[in-house]
Structures are given as structure tokens and as C-alpha cells.
């Protein structure tokens, strides 16, 4: 779908990967010509200027879904800067991710308003049902779990988002139903 990248996974388990999400062990990825062109085009769109790095990263992540090391290497050569510097920026900002998102990315708002209205219990239930931690993706690639800061729908607290769809006033009991809604789509 989003991910145009052909993954050639080395024999690492998903657990190893996600436990060490910050790159110590990353799968080797071979980028297709098409993907490389997408990255180059994104750099060119901003005149290959170093000062436009964050805009470039936004553009590339918007197209590919995530920013693995191999993608950063191409950006580095296009913008004529060090990979280390790009890695520094990617890992600094929470919006950028180096691991692929699930087909249905689930995010839970952990803003204060949602927190005092029970977001923590909802998150615990999500983790328990999906058997993953925040920042991880389920082994089947179906769901990924992330926590975000305020989405600004405090009137609906606590808020859970699946993709773009917003679920308001969520209780731990509803989680089963919400997850099943998306699991069924697979069956169809």
C-alpha cells in the first residue's frame, strides 16, 4: 500500500527489531529504483538545500510511511550532508519514525485531559489485546500502537484514533470491539 519498499528481511525476529527500535539492529533494505527516485524527487522539490531537511523528511515519510537508515543515506547524499546529522534529526522529532507503521495505526491521546479521564487504562487494555508496546507493530503488520500528545478533542476525552478515524469517550471495555472492527476487514 503506502510502503513501496521491497523488504529483504534478514533472519531477525520482529521482537528483536522492535525492542531495539532505535536502529542498533535494522533489517537490511534494498530500495527499488522507483523508491530511490521518489526520495530524490522530494529532495529536489526543496532545491536539495540542507536547511530544508525537515521539509524533505516530511515529504519522504508522507510517501514511504517511514524513514529507515537506507532512505536517510540517499537523502544525505542528495543534500550533501552527513547521515549522522540526518539520523540526529529523525530521532529527535517524535513525528518521524524508522519502523514501518501497521496497516491500521492506532494512536491514543495521552494529553492531560485524556489522562485524567482514564487514557492510561485504555492504553493498558490496548497493549494487552495487541500484545505490543507503544512504538511497536504487531507481527502480522496489521496494527501499530503509538501515543500522541493532545489532539485537541478534549471534549471527547479519552480519545483513540485508528488511522484518521477518531473514537471519543473510549472505555477499556470498548477496545475489544474497536480492534475487532479492523480484524474483520481482513476476513472480508
Amino acid at each position, binding site marked *: 500500500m503506502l510502503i513501496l519498499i521491497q523488504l529483504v528481511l534478514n533472519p531477525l525476529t520482529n521482537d528483536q527489531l522492535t525492542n531495539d527500535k532505535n536502529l542498533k539492529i535494522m533489517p537490511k533494505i534494498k530500495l527499488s529504483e522507483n523508491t530511490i527516485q521518489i526520495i530524490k524527487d522530494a529532495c529536489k522539490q526543496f532545491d536539495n538545500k540542507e536547511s530544508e531537511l525537515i521539509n524533505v523528511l516530511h515529504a519522504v515519510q508522507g510517501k514511504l510511511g517511514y524513514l529507515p537508515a537506507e532512505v536517510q543515506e540517499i537523502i544525505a547524499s542528495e543534500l550533501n550532508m552527513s547521515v549522522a546529522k540526518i539520523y540526529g534529526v529523525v530521532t529527535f522529532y517524535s513525528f518521524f519514525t524508522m519502523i514501518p507503521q501497521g496497516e491500521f495505526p492506532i494512536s491514543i491521546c*495521552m494529553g492531560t485531559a485524556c489522562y485524567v479521564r482514564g487514557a492510561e487504562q485504555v492504553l*493498558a*487494555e490496548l497493549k494487552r489485546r495487541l500484545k505490543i508496546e507503544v512504538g511497536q507493530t504487531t507481527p502480522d503488520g496489521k496494527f501499530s500502537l503509538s501515543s500522541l500528545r493532545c489532539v485537541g478533542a478534549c471534549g471527547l476525552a479519552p480519545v483513540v484514533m485508528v488511522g484518521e478515524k477518531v473514537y471519543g469517550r473510549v472505555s477499556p471495555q470498548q477496545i475489544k470491539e474497536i480492534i475487532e472492527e479492523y480484524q474483520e476487514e481482513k476476513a472480508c
Partner: protein
Amino acid sequence: MSNYKMNVLICGGTGCKAAESANIQARFKNILEEKSLEDEVQVIMTGCFGFCEQGPIVKILPDNTFYVRVTPSDIEEIVMEHFIKGRPVERLLYKDPKTKESVPATKGMDFYKKQLRIALRNCGFINPERIEEYIARDGYLALATCLTEKTPAEVIGEIKESGLRGRGGGGFPTGLKWELTAKSVSDKKYVVCNADEGDPGAFMDRSILEGDPHSVIEAMAICGYCIGADEGVVYIRAEYPLAIERLKIAIKQARESGLLGKNIFGTEFNFDIELRYGAGAFVCGEETALIHSMEGLRGEPTFKPPFPSQEGYMKKPTNVNNVETFANVPVIINKGASWFNKIGTEKSKGTKVFALAGKINNVGLIEVPMGTTLREVIYEIGGGIKDGKEFKSVQTGGPSGGCLTKKFLDTPIDYDNLIAAGSMMGSGGMIVMDEDDCMVSIAKFYLEFTLEESCGKCSPCRIGNKRLHEILDKITQGKGKEEDIERLQELSHVIKDTSLCGLGQSSPNPVLSTILNFRDEYLAHVKDGKCPAGQCKAMLKYTINEENCTGCTLCFRNCPVGAITGERRAPHFIDQALCIKCGVCYEKCKFDAVKLA
């Protein structure tokens, strides 16, 4: 709007959009077409009305009927009854919680009565995607006045006299900031609008950009004229797609109308605005960090001086103001500094927008004059505490602020009073907490946030906050000791004194203010091994009292993790290894059989 007999204003803020306001709009259009009313009734998606608790909100003009919690299935009834037969749909009107009577218009609602809307003046009144509607409400008049009748120094003088202070947190006098940047000599200067609203629970900047983007564009141009800049940059969170879209539309329309670009209003003044996207880093709210992020770098703060007014974006003098600050500027120019500085308290002029949330009946976005008391905000506008519970604390200022108790309820809210009370204004988040909230857990919650957001540059913030969090975690696990409280305080002061930027300097505030105001609660955790609010799960244990249990299976059916077992009409049992301590069984049991120890 004049060609139409009626206007339907649908709230298009993020909160209401999440609750289906787009479907409501589509439904209105369909049904109006069906009834051939599309030329008589105009449907407009506006910015936030503020009353998020009651969303999605639909307002009908000219009669000002205010419908709350509207769903797409209600639309047909509104069209048939209200538009065709002229009778408002009673069941969708707001009911006053005290009198239980319907209140058809906003002016009769307690939520709106005490508010004074300056920064939010157009939110919910205009279609933010049409520049004509902004202009019809005196839009760009202030810019025209400044460019054609006033010198930059006169405008700066007006802003200084108004007493406007930065609404993003610090409260630095806006006029003075403009003056400092104006005095810097350079061939190029920049105006930056800080729209990287990172405070969890605060969403006023986003609502202003979604509901009234032109007010910010106009104010940035005025600032550019004053300081001698021809380029403006809005640094906005990438997580705000709707605000970005509306801002883009507004900038495009302003350019087409000649209100941005070259020779604005036929003068020598040129000004244009571009967007830069944040990528989720709270520390980028700090000026120097924000500027580094705009340059494509890690958003780490650097030492001041040099101040951005001397050396900022691209090493050029830069004036950074927050969205809400800018939104006040056109009104000050139009109505005069002497009008503005009569509102508020001695040292804090004008109004402040607060995002009221948490355990309160009327969650929403409110704007009140400085000097309004917390009691007025919480009990009159906010409608009191949810479910009739007891007020415990109100947290202001986000992760940099503090928790205030009952004794501060009658304190007039302004920058200085909040600091004196051990908290701060911050960007205007106001989270209300009740008796069920554990203050140690709240302090831990904020520390978790700071830990994640600390950029890691200074050791006191990077390591110190981690240690603070560990101690708090120990306390909430029931393993704390009495001396831990002193250690928390000591460490907090070191972090405050030795961190470089505002993030580190203020990160221990939630810890210090909760220890100051809720020491008993800390002591209960460390001395008695109890969490008085019953929130620290490690200290909780749910059990079923066999004598009271009738075996109705209600707890069994509601337990989300299947931890409860038992036969029908026989006492049930909770498996402690499976129990996640969510408390559902405790809430559901009708026979008082579930006990909390």
C-alpha cells in the same frame, strides 16, 4: 451572507470534526437539495465555537438557535421542523443543568455569559475559508491603518501602551519585543509565528488558526511593518492538518487580494508568509529551539544572548510571537490601546484563552478577561465538577506549571498571581481534577512527558528528570520512603537552577507544587502505603465479599480481561494474577460485594 434567508453554521473545529461534523454538513446539503432549499439556506463550516463538551454544534442564523450534540440523523428533523415550519427542535437545544430548561441562544448560557472574546472574536462566526467574511468583520482594516496612517514607531508605541504580553507562556511584553527587533540593524529581518502548540491539553492556537487564520496573517504583516521585515514564517505542528490547510487557503487568498505580496495597499511595504512544519518536539516552543528547527536542525535551545531579536533565523534579527498574541494585535489597532488596557488587571492586560478540560462539566475553549477568578471559570463557566464530585485541584501552565488547590479558587488569574501561587499561565491549559485523582501520579505523568521531551543537551534536565521520575514511580509502587520527599525537592531545585532553557527550568514545577499543596498525599503513600485517591494500582486490591455476592454475574460479564470466575447464583472470585485493576467490577456491582483494599 445577504442573499440567503438562513445560514447554518457547523462547527468545524477538530473536536467537532472528530464527532462527525463533516457528515452533518453533507447531510444538510443533501436534504436542502432534496427540498429545493439550497438557494435559501447556506451551509457554512466555521471554526471552533468553544463549547466542545456539547459538540458537534450547529448554529442557525438569523435566529441564533444553538443546537448541541447534533448527529447526522437529526438533520432531516431540523430542516423539516425549523426551516420549513419555523419551530426549533426542542430536544436538540442546550438544557441549563440547574433549571433543566432549554436555552436556545448562546447569550443565555452560563458558559458564554462571563466570556469576553477578543482573540477568538471570529471563531464560530465566519467561514475561515473566505477572506470576504473576515474583511466584513473589520479584517485587514488595522493593517491598512498602520500602513497608510501610522509610522512603525507609532504602532509599536500603541502595542506597548496596550500592555499586551506574550500569550505563549513567558508573558514578555510584546511591544518591547517588537521595539528591540526594530532597533536591530540588518538588511533582512523575519517575523515568526510560533504555532507549535505542544502543551498537552491546550488547543487555543490551533482553534484560532482553524477558525480565524486571517487575523494571524494580518498581525504578522503589521509586525513586519513595525520591525522592518518583509518575510514571515509560521512554524506549525504537522499534527494539525486542518489548521495547516486553512492557513494555506488564507495565505493564498490574501495574496490574491493584494494583502500579502508587493506594495501592499499601494505603499512601499512588501510582505509574504511561508509555512514551516514542526515534527513533534515540545522544546521547539522555546524560541531558540524553534529557530534551529526552522533551519532544519535538531530543535535544541541555545544560550541567550544573543536574543532572536538580535540574531535569530538565518542569523538575522527575528521576532517570534505566539498565535494568540498575534490574534490580539488587529483589535488593539482598531479599538485603541486605551480600550484594551482597561480590560484586565494592573500588570496583565486584555483577555486570555483557556482550554478548560478534565473533570469538568463544560469542557471547551473559553476566553475571559485577566483577573477573572478560578472559581468563576470552574464553577460558572465550567459548570462545576463532573458527576457532582469534590473539586481537588486545577493544573495550569501544562508540564511547566503547577497544581493549585481550593485556597486559590478566589485568586484573580493573571501572569503574576499564578506565579506567586506556584504555578504559571503557560499557554493556557487548565485541567480540573477531582477527588479521584492522585497527585503523585499527576506529578509522575508530567515528568513522563518532560522525560520524553527533554532534548538531552543539559545533564540536569536529561538525567535529573529521569531520577525524579524513578523516585515518583517508586512512591506510586508503594515502595517510597519518607526521605524521598526531601530528595525530590532537593533534586528539583538543582534542575531548576542549572538547566539552560525554560523546559528544564520549569520541569520540576509539577513535583514541587504537588509536594507543597498535597504533602499529606505523598506522606500517605510513603508512610501508610495507601493511595488516598485509589489510583495507584500497585496499592490496590479488588476482592469479592462472599457474603454479599449473589452470583448475578454482572461483574463476570463486564470484566474486560476475564479475571472473574464463578457459577451463576454462587459467589464469584477475582484472579489477582489476571486482574488489571480497572475497577469495572467495583463500579458495576449492585450489592456492594466488590471490596477495594
